[in-house]
């Protein structure tokens, strides 16, 4: 299905599917059929834990999920927009390449594992091992923003991309232990102070520069619009920035 098939002046073809009690395989098969039929907005009502929604989809479509999105939402996804009007479970945006996922609720563990492009916005908390093994290449820069807090191993082995925690209504620390352990690329921005004993030994705090501030401002504006939240109280100078101080933490490992 080529993107050119739907002209810009053509009306958005929208369809609603009742996903109540539908087995995940059947549901995802139906979504692909609807995409092939030219629908550009697919609304899934009554979702409750169906896995693999939006996985591997490459088309310019929007999927709106009403209900709890199951594991591996948007895995390998390359282009679509997914909006979840509830919570999401584990493995959101696993190895996602491009597109956007907005979760209006909380999300579970291992979000953004190996993610290599696109954006994930979560209004609430995210779980353990978020953004591990994330990577970037040239213009492919994955971004994760969460409005709440995160568990241990945030950004473990992170190799590229950006992660932001807003900690709205929360007291620091916003993450658990082993923050950025093994990290060797990318940046993490946490609102409020960071405690040294949480940090993996490969990361350090750096001051935000003008480029960071400008980037954060644009990102917060986009997040606020997608999340339907007022973030006027969030100032970029409240953030701590964490970056790896070596791009090759294991460069000497085999040398002595």
């Amino acid at each position, binding site marked *: 299905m080529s993107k050119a098939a739907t002209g810009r002046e053509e009306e958005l073809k929208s369809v609603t599917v009742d996903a109540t009690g539908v087995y995940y395989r059947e549901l995802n098969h139906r979504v692909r059929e609807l995409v092939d039929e030219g629908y550009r907005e697919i609304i899934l009502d009554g979702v409750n834990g169906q896995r693999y929604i939006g996985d591997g989809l490459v088309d310019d479509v929007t999927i709106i999920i009403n209900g*709890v999105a*199951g594991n591996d939402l948007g895995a390998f996804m390359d282009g679509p927009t997914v909006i979840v009007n509830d919570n999401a479970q584990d493995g959101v945006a696993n190895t996602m390449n491009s597109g956007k996922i907005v979760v209006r609720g909380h999300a*579970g563990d291992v979000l953004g594992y190996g993610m290599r492009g696109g954006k994930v916005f979560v209004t609430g908390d995210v779980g353990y091992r978020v953004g591990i093994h994330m990577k970037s290449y040239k213009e492919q820069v994955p971004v994760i923003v969460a409005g709440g807090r995160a568990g*241990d191993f945030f950004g473990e082995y992170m190799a590229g991309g950006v992660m932001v925690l807003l900690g709205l209504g929360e007291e620091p620390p916003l993450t658990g232990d082993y923050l950025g352990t093994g990290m060797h690329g990318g940046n993490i921005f946490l609102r409020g102070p960071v405690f040294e004993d949480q940090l993996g030994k490969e990361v350090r705090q750096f001051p935000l520069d003008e480029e960071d501030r400008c980037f954060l401002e644009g990102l917060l504006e986009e997040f606020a619009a997608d999340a339907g939240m007022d973030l006027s109280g969030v100032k970029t100078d409240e953030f701590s920035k964490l970056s790896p101080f070596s791009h090759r933490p294991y460069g000497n490992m085999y040398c002595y």
Partner: protein
Amino acid sequence: MMELVFGDQYSKWQVDTCKVPAACGLSGIISRDGKVLGGNVIIESMRVIHDRGNGLGGGFAGYGIYPEHRDHYALHIMFEGAEGRSACEGMLESELEIEAAEEINTRSVPAIQEAPELRRYFAVPRREKLARESIEPDDFMVRLVMSINTTVPGTFVFSSGKNMGVFKAVGFAEDVGEFFRLEEYNGYTWIGHGRFPTNTPGWWGGAHPFNILDWSVVHNGEISSYGINKRYLEMFGYECTLLTDTEVMAYLFDLLVRKHRLPLEVACSVLAAPFWKDIDSEADPERKALEQALRMTYSSALVNGPFAVIVGYSRGMVGLNDRIKLRPLVAAYKDDYLYVSSEESAIRQICPRPDRVWAPKAGQPVIGELKGDV
């Protein structure tokens, strides 16, 4: 690594299995007011996480289900053959005063095959036996269960508490629930499990929950400390016979809480002990001393490896994760109900709009207890 030696007694119940990735499914619910729910509720919850299991084990435990026999131990026993049954019943007859003995009602479900004979016995230890050895009834029952499970061929006691019962089989959880007619039982706590065995055989005795007396455990993960835990438990007379790592968890709770009288939270901090780095940086000296003492006293009861467990007991239900959260666990409150599950969807299926849903922290127990008597 577990040492697996299969006697002939296992051959019939064992289902051929290849090595597959692990992802068991758990779900549990308790009414802290003690309101009873039909077993169909936990079946509906487990049905949503069908794909976390692979049909090689499913099971449930319900509490409050035998109010008419509340003062008797309810023994659920599976028999492979008449020989085992007659030997076992001989032992029961000589050791116990049996109030009632009956078949466990089942219905024919195509997916559940090769069922052993399933019977239950409501009984208490014979008074003269207790007096002769001046032994507590609970200890007497543990010893009897261990003795039957280790000496009687093809016979396993898989449930031995009061006013509770375990129902388990080889099959998907929802089929196992249908098979055991779970909707006919009413309990204030239900826990369920769909199994995806990785390192150990899928057989009837190896399905979860694992039970001893009051304690029932369902588990997702892999207990890499099994060997240490097993040898430690053997010193206290617990015999691991069910060929699955989770078994140690039920016996550890019985040992730590019933025998050693540790508060439940403390027992949980023995199983999922804080790391030494966190103990070293603990500011409260009293707490630090306690944590140090527990780690040193109970180093062999530390449970290592990835786990999420739900533990049922007559007063409540506990959800607990390993210390770095290597398996999922979600909890929710609604009115007086506490829910714990591997996936939020399993909770939302039976409680669409909880008051609060959250992911418990690694190593921190979520405990729901009855407010009064039931």
